[in-house]
């Protein structure tokens, strides 16, 4: 009898350790969901939950707040609030704390403080946008996958003021920042913020990804003329507008080796300063990336009519 009890206890312990159990388990708190379309151009709804039940997934969180139609046994979102993809290249994508999740929404667990963002957009230029800036101050505050990551700030020598401003803004949101030289590298379990003119960033892996276009970086912008011009792309990946001197860009990407990396860059130090000044939750909200010129904000990718 004792042997049977020991075996039963061992099985129960193994089940508990592997995440099995009866009921939903312990819950979490302060999770928000935002639903937009057109790369954040139009908000369809937003909801926040102060208290979230245990075993909550991104899909359940969405279904709790919006009318959702799913396919494939609840693994794929067909429509949210009656909005469905009306063309072959229009689908729903989601980001948790500004980072594209590597798995389906039904398998992605929700953690305390998470900001979930669903967007219905045209993916003809790229089906993968690995990171976006619209959930700032996430992922710096609550991290990725429920784990807060260290933030490393790498600044160019000619943008000291912009670097200070970025550091100050991150510190204001409660994010401790360590500063290091350009190109030192910080491992794959960090959040990196690169601040510098494009000519300074040129040569880094991230800059090469951005120059390779949205299909490589998920950023709908690239620099031209050796960094003197900033070409903004439309959702199809075509150049819609080109900015010149004083233009800045706040964007995020992920090279899969270094973790999410934010770029605060520009055509010149003035552009970088303008981009650094745009590092505010209110200005970045619901944007995949943000270009700035002459004090005006230009959400990227550029929508028709902008």
């Amino acid at each position, binding site marked *: 009898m004792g042997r049977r009890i020991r075996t039963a206890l061992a099985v129960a312990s193994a089940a508990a350790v*592997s995440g099995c159990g009866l009921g939903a*388990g312990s819950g979490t708190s302060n999770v928000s969901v935002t639903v937009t379309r057109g790369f954040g151009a139009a908000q369809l709804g937003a909801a926040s939950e102060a208290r979230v*039940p245990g075993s909550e*997934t991104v899909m359940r969180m969405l279904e*709790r707040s919006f009318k959702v139609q799913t396919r494939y046994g609840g693994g794929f979102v067909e429509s949210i609030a009656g909005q469905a993809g009306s063309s072959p290249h229009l689908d729903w994508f989601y980001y948790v704390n500004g980072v594209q999740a590597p798995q389906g929404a039904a*398998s992605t667990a929700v953690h305390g403080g998470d900001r979930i963002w669903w967007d219905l957009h045209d993916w003809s230029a790229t089906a993968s946008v690995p990171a976006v800036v619209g959930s700032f101050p996430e992922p710096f505050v609550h991290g990725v996958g429920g784990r807060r990551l260290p933030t490393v700030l790498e600044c160019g020598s000619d943008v000291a003021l912009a670097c200070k401003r970025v550091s100050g803004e991150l510190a204001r949101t409660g994010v401790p920042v360590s500063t290091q030289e350009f190109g030192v590298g910080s491992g794959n379990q960090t959040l990196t913020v690169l601040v510098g003119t494009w000519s300074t960033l040129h040569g880094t892996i991230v800059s090469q990804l951005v120059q390779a276009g949205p299909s490589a970086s998920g950023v709908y912008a690239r620099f031209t003329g050796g960094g003197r011009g900033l070409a903004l792309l439309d959702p199809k990946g075509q150049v819609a507008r080109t900015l010149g001197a004083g233009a800045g860009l706040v964007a995020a990407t992920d090279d899969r080796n270094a973790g999410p990396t934010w770029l605060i860059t520009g055509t010149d130090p003035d552009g970088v300063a303008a981009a650094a000044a745009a590092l505010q939750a209110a200005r970045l909200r619901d944007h995949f990336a943000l270009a700035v010129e002459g004090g005006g904000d230009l959400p990227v990718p550029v929508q028709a009519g902008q």
Partner: protein
Amino acid sequence: MSYRKRASPLHAARAGAAWSYCLALGFAALILDNPVALGALTAALLLAAAGARVWRELRRALVLAAPLALMIAFVNALVTRDGLTVIVRLGDLPVLGHTDITLEATAYGGVLGLRALALILCGGLYTLAVDPDEVLRLFRRVSFHSALTATLATRMVPVLLRDSKRLGEAQRCRPGTPPSRAALMRAATAGVLDRALDVAAALEVRGYGAARRPPRARAPWSRHDLAFAACAVTIAVLAVVIRFGALAPFHAYPALALELRPGGAAAIAALLACALAPFADRRGIQA
């Protein structure tokens, strides 16, 4: 499980009426999703089988169908990601990935299982209570070849069962270990295929391919014909009213919503009564 003439109102009714009655019950099973309505329909099928004096045979189908219904419910609960109320956390499983069993997926799996059970019982009732030759006569004016094919296929199932039973008995008479089910099935299937070839050859020789549309056979409608035909129409209408008239709304996802309004309860009771009413009149039934 095959048709045999019995002393019951359903057997006494013409094939068209009996076929319509079974079809209406099957239609109701397909469109109803409220578990109370589906449960009532399943009960109606079982009581109808008793009324048609085929309960004993249908019970065998029930014994076979019940595990299938349970399996459908289990698989749906395991693979469906919908539903908000987690009742069991299974963690990360091979192939399935992160798996949580929700109350909603379990309930909807139960509904699917119940629907499968009702459909199997409906098919069983049809097989036991509707004369396939009469069905052939009924449909040969519409499509002779299709009707013939359907009837032959229906007849092949009991032939296959009888063959396998005979083969099993014959092999048990021989010394040594008894034959496996697979060996029996292989032998029976081969026999059926041979028989199918013989049937095809006989049909060809007798010129069935050149058959013309036969004349309409007119026979007066009996009270049982009228009762089952009227009930078939009423059952179909009631099922549509219950399903689309918002009388008994049921939504499994994202959260369970089950409601039975007074009108819905009355409609379900009417459906149950309508399915059983023709069996009350046993006048003209010879025991």
